[in-house]
């Protein structure tokens, strides 16, 4: 973490949750611009919840999320795969081209240049030639590549990825990881939820270890220690229905 870069994203005593039960409890951290951060932790640690909060899908029930100046417009979010309707009759090209929404708006057609960019994005994820195919005909790995192509076109300075490698073949994982590193090289700020610690050690310079509260944040080597991991495992996974009201915020 380079201390001279100003923090792009700041979590200030952040509590995010559902029905008053916190999934993330009093998280304070500052993400510098250009960081490539792996968000890790056991199941139920609040990783997806954190990304949802940054993307604006969930409102904090305590504390703040400080967004960069350009706000949500500059944030591209890729949730876990469940929400897209794969049987919908739309072609890969059209689906990926949606990434240009911020340029096109709801009405305008695609210019020649824009069509080319869509083509390039598809090439970048090795889906050239798939333009006309309906998205329902893609395999899991291919669909994930298409979503990445869409992300490319979104051209956002902040990118949030929730478990992008889940249930994907190794070759695709490698290719997409390559793409992420390329983005990192372009200076984008990336938060990714990852489960494979080997991958984290190999590629991600920064890690945020969550177990509903912040366990550790910083250079990966310093975060991924046995002590930290043990502590993370201990912290409870289930909601406690009888939990008393939390009074930590007054103290903090």
């Amino acid at each position, binding site marked *: 973490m380079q201390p001279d870069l100003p923090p792009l994203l700041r979590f200030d005593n952040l509590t995010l949750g559902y029905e008053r039960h916190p999934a993330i409890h009093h998280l304070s951290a500052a993400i510098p611009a250009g960081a490539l951060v792996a968000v890790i932790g056991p199941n139920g640690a609040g990783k997806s919840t954190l990304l949802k909060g940054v993307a*604006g899908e969930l409102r904090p029930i305590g504390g703040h999320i400080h967004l960069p100046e350009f706000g949500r417009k500059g944030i591209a979010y890729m949730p876990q795969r469940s929400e*897209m309707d794969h049987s*919908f009759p739309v072609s890969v090209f059209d689906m990926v081209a949606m990434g240009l929404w*911020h340029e096109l708006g709801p009405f305008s057609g695609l210019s020649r240049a824009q069509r080319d960019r869509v083509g390039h994005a598809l090439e970048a994820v090795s889906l050239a030639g798939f333009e006309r195919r309906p998205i329902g005909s893609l395999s899991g790995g291919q669909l994930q590549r298409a979503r990445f192509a869409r992300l490319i076109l979104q051209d956002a300075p902040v990118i949030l990825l929730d478990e992008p490698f889940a249930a994907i073949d190794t070759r695709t994982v490698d290719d997409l990881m390559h793409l992420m590193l390329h983005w990192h090289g372009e200076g984008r700020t990336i938060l990714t939820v990852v489960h494979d610690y080997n991958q984290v050690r190999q590629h991600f310079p920064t890690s945020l270890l969550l177990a509903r509260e912040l366990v550790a944040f910083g250079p990966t080597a310093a975060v991924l220690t046995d002590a930290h991991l043990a502590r993370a495992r201990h912290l409870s996974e289930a909601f406690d229905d009888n939990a008393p009201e939390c009074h930590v915020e007054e103290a903090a």
Partner: protein
Amino acid sequence: MSLYELLLAPFADFGFMRRALVGCLALALGATPVGVFLLLRRMSLMGDAMSHAILPGAALGYLAFGLSLGAMTIGGIIAGLVVVFAAGIVTRASILKEDASLAAFYLLSLAAGVMIVSLRGRNLDLLHVLFGSVLALDDASLILISAISSVTVLGLALLFRPLVLECFDPSFLRAVSRLSPVAHYGFLMLVVLNLVSGFHALGTLMAVGIMILPSAAARLWARSLPATLLVAVLIAFGSGLIGLLVSFHIDVPAGPAIVLMCGVAYFASLLAAPGGVLAGRLPVRRHLES
């Protein structure tokens, strides 16, 4: 019987046949595309729900203005809009999905309607009065469905991109645009307008039938959305034309004949189309190289 007598004479000789054909065309252009989207959003049963949900609006119109079709239709539209908007709000704001919230509101609406009707003229089957028939299209009804059809075509063209996105990847739309509620509610509004004007002019069977059956048939063929829309509209209009001719030459009721023609198209598609039941089960020709 010459070809002229078979195909053209019924329309040349009788004004009500010409009007019926125009009505079918308007419905095919406006309501059927809406039906395609309903199908894709898994809301196909909404038509039937809506035919009950409009009762309190029609009842209030009746209470205020007597048996005035205009008042009852407008009342019906308002009631329909209230129900879909309420259901839409609940769907977006709670854990209940579209079908549950719609079911809840349409049932409440129906119950309220029955109560209202019983306040006066309790032996009047209001909806029977309100629902029209394709052979009885007066000027007002024709104007109504033509106008709604035009509004729909325009609305779908404007809303096309956000609507499509709203259908297949709503979280992405929410992330990139604030138009998500506009697309959602705008679409629901088009649904109500098409359904109620369809009921008014043509009755529930035809209004819903022409929305859903051609859409289901087209879905089995087309791989892209524009193709689906086109095929659906063609099937809808073709069924209208042939259904009217069948009703004319074979003396069967017109509305059901039209819907059954749509059904014929649907069954044919089930058998023959790539998305149908036989596809993949028949011995295939030699496969392609790649």
